[in-house]
């Protein structure tokens, strides 16, 4: 039987050490990489295709959940964190287990056993992907940044940089000062998670950042459109116009 390939992702060396140490009792599991941040983690997962990852959530720049959003084929996951408030979210992304730091060897073994079973069952990816998309809808805080992957590059877009969003089938195109980025999410997802005092859905196909609007003009009879500071013109629906009127 092949060895199970594992990657440890934690920004604290001591955090990685403990997992490494505990894993030394598992000859069937091979540690193929240790990563000190999310970027390294994504790279390692995409290149090494591990079966199992030990993932910290709180990490610089790109956190554990954001990492998972842009990985095409997430492996089996064991979260290791000191934060208990993410437990629910963790199980929604189908994590095998959720270890609260500091954890005992017994607790660790339990988690690894579960994870190994999952690896052997080879659970289909689509199930997990569904979980991923769902997970982010649960969160109640407003989005502060959006992580997207273009070709081989990962971009972190602060929501402040977004001018407007446009729906494109199953994707949403984010228009920013630095260009446009495609994200596999729905308009509804963004409508719910962007701060409504900053972003308004003006049309079925468009969400606009309020402070980017230069003017609202009558386009045809009873139909309006907004003109942005950048010069772009976006359609406004009747309900969208009502919403804008309330904001100004």
């Amino acid at each position, binding site marked *: 039987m092949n060895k199970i390939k594992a990657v440890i992702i934690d920004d604290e060396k*001591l955090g990685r050490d403990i997992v490494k140490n505990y894993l030394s009792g598992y000859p069937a599991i091979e540690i193929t990489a240790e990563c000190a941040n999310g970027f390294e983690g994504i790279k390692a997962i995409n290149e090494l295709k591990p079966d199992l990852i030990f993932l910290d959530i709180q990490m610089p720049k790109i956190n554990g959940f954001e990492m998972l959003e842009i990985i095409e084929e997430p492996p089996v996951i064991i979260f290791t964190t000191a934060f208990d408030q993410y437990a629910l979210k963790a199980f929604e992304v189908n994590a095998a287990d959720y270890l609260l730091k500091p954890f005992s060897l017994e607790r660790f073994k339990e988690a690894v056993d579960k994870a190994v079973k999952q690896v052997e069952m080879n659970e289909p990816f689509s199930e997990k992907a569904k979980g991923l998309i769902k997970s982010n809808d649960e969160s109640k805080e407003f989005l502060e940044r959006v992580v997207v992957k273009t070709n081989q590059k990962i971009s972190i877009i602060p929501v402040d940089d977004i001018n407007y969003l446009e729906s494109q089938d199953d994707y949403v195109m984010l228009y920013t000062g630095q260009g446009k980025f495609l994200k596999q999410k729905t308009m509804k997802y963004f409508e719910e998670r962007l701060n409504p005092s900053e972003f308004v859905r003006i049309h079925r196909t468009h969400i606009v950042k309020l402070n980017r609007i230069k003017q609202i003009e009558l386009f045809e009879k009873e139909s309006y459109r907004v003109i942005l500071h950048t010069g772009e013109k976006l359609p406004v629906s009747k309900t969208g116009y009502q919403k804008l009127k309330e904001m100004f």
Partner: protein
Amino acid sequence: MTNPYISNRKIFYMYASLWCMIAFLHFLIITINLKMKWQFAAMDAVVFNLLYLAIGISLWFMASYNSLENYTTRKILINHFSAAVITTGCWIGISYFLLTGILIDNKIYKDELYNSLIWRFLIGILYYSVLTAIDYVIIYYNSFQTKLLKELELNTFVKEAELKSLKYQINPHFIFNSLNSISSLTMTDPAKAREMTIKLSQFLRSTLSKNERQKSKLSEEIANAKLYLEIEKVRFGERLDFVEDMQKYCADIEVPSMILQPLFENSIKHGVYESIDTVVIKLLCRIEKDYLIITVSNNFDPEAVSSKGEGIGLRNIRSRLKLIYNQENLLVSKKEKSQFTVNIYIPLLKKESENE
């Protein structure tokens, strides 16, 4: 409610002297206007007014039981009207009996008294009304005072509670992460694990004990906050650095306890947590004009998008400072390109006279 005419000596004296005055006027009126013999007039004045003095004290209960909040105006008016008629009737009856039956045996006086009964009755009703009105004023004044007192008490209580809750804010994640580091070190470097356990204990002990006192010396405060940084340094290794610069004479100045540690915590949260590179936390203490200025700054990764504006941590310190020194804007934070700076202004007091 206790009767203020009995319980409060001052009010009783005032009340008694009021009746002395009324009795004197009474005496003058009946001697001058009615040409009554002065001995009879004096006796008349004393009996009538002394009796009403006694009745007046008990009127307090009428007023306090017919409180304006609990009954309708109609009911109160009816109650008082009947009480006025009855008490005045009794007053006249008893006085008349005492004067004519026991004290004075004089036909002319008796007739005169008899003829003036209707006037005396009306005056009795007037006395009743005035005294009751005064009683209501006293009741209102008393309840107003109690309310003020209660409000004051509540305010101090709220202030204290607020202060407490603002202070008890050691981040539990800090403890769990530190314990995880210790757990890890026990396997790789037991000596360091022991060292860290000791540091963590020291930090927790001083933090917990400080809660009872409100202030400590700046030097102690810095020592404690440094302990915190050293613990975090074990977690983050090279990713965290600390530089300190303090003017000598700042060391003994009293500052609110546990005010530095949250600033460092803030630096770590927004600096170290979000950055892959080394974050340097700088502490600078100096005296300028009437303030001790404590500056904590750190570099951060401008690309890492963290929440704009101030977090709860800084807001808490600001409100704590405001509660203690009763001044606005004792905490100023600014964010430059990749540098975050917080300035805390501690007013240097000539006398230590802030709220306890």
